[in-house]
């Protein structure tokens, strides 16, 4: 018996768990997850990108360590969000993790996280469809939010993820089409294509689609994402309210 798996399960049983995922990397999962948690007071954000933790960097917490108390891992609180990340366990250094240890790390992080009465719990997933996704599925019945860019390269991977989810009886709660365009003096540039495929994907699953522009000012908020008030935050808030 794995007591940490069991208590991670128990801990999440009565909460809404929103898992921001894609299969593909670099599509904006972490940005969307952070803004989704920020949009709803009382949220927790659990960063399960074990080897590429982004939450500490987005919130300006790099190098800061979680305090560990009798009750487990104390959150780092920013902008009303309780943030939990492996980055808060190891600090600002690399994590290299063989496949056999990934599930244990996911279970421990969730079992020890002092979630308090946080609800929803937003989970920032790593790219890939490997151990972390399987581990999360063992623990909880999450609501998947799929993030893609317009590119065929990204869409193809996200489609595979959606098909896998359908196979296990899960439907995307929302599809986010990120980096849809960038403003160029009033007209639009489409650096990664027009996104028709993604729109059709959302439709075919009956999931609402939310479109996010590229906002070059976002980069200035990496480190203080909780202060960002631009268009991406606005649309992500609508998405969260629709869940």
């Amino acid at each position, binding site marked *: 018996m*794995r007591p940490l798996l*069991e208590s991670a399960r128990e801990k999440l049983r009565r909460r809404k768990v929103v898992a921001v995922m894609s299969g593909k990397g670099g599509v904006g999962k972490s940005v969307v997850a952070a803004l989704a948690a920020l949009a709803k007071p009382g949220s927790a954000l659990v960063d399960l990108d074990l080897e590429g933790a982004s939450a500490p960097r987005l919130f300006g917490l790099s190098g800061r360590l979680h305090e560990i108390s009798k009750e487990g891992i104390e959150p780092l609180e920013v902008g009303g969000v309780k943030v939990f990340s492996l980055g808060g366990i190891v600090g600002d250094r690399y994590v*290299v993790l063989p496949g056999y240890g990934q599930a244990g790390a996911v279970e421990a992080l969730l079992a020890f996280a002092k979630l308090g009465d946080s609800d929803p719990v937003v989970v920032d997933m790593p790219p890939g469809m490997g151990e972390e996704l399987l581990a999360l599925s063992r623990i909880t019945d999450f609501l998947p939010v799929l993030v893609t860019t317009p590119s065929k390269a990204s869409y193809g991977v996200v489609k595979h993820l959606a098909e896998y989810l359908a196979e296990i009886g899960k439907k995307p709660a929302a599809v986010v089409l990120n980096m849809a365009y960038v403003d160029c003096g009033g007209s639009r540039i489409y650096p990664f294509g027009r996104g028709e495929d993604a729109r059709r994907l959302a439709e075919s699953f009956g999931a609402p689609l939310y479109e996010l522009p590229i906002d070059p000012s976002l980069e200035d908020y990496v480190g203080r994402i909780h202060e960002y008030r631009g268009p991406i935050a606005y649309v992500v808030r609508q998405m969260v309210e629709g869940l």
Partner: protein
Amino acid sequence: MHEWSLALSLVQTLDRWALENGVQIKRVVLSVPSPAQLDVSILTEAFDTLKRESRLEQAKLEVRVRSPRYRCRACGYEFGQEEVDQQIRQLMGQYGEEYPLHLIPELLPTFVKCPRCGSHDIEAELSIKVDEVETI
């Protein structure tokens, strides 16, 4: 410190299990890998406090501290805890008591290198698990 949290996991998990199976629990063997450096006396104290008014009320916790056998998957070298101890001590010096492997022993390959070839590609049984449960 988080030993309390681990003990709570254990008590809650087993209490639920005991209820489902209509039993009381007499003895629990928890197996923990030595690099986690869990404090057995805190764990036991926490367990004995938290078990009250549960189906573990009369349960005795035994903590089995395992010294893993390590194998480097890069060069094949097999080694024991003694060849890792110094790296662990150094890590504790750096992070303090609540150091990463204390919470998540599975992180060992992130921090520990093969004493022969320097690779981080180390295999070991590092999970925390219940080995035995005796019921009445």
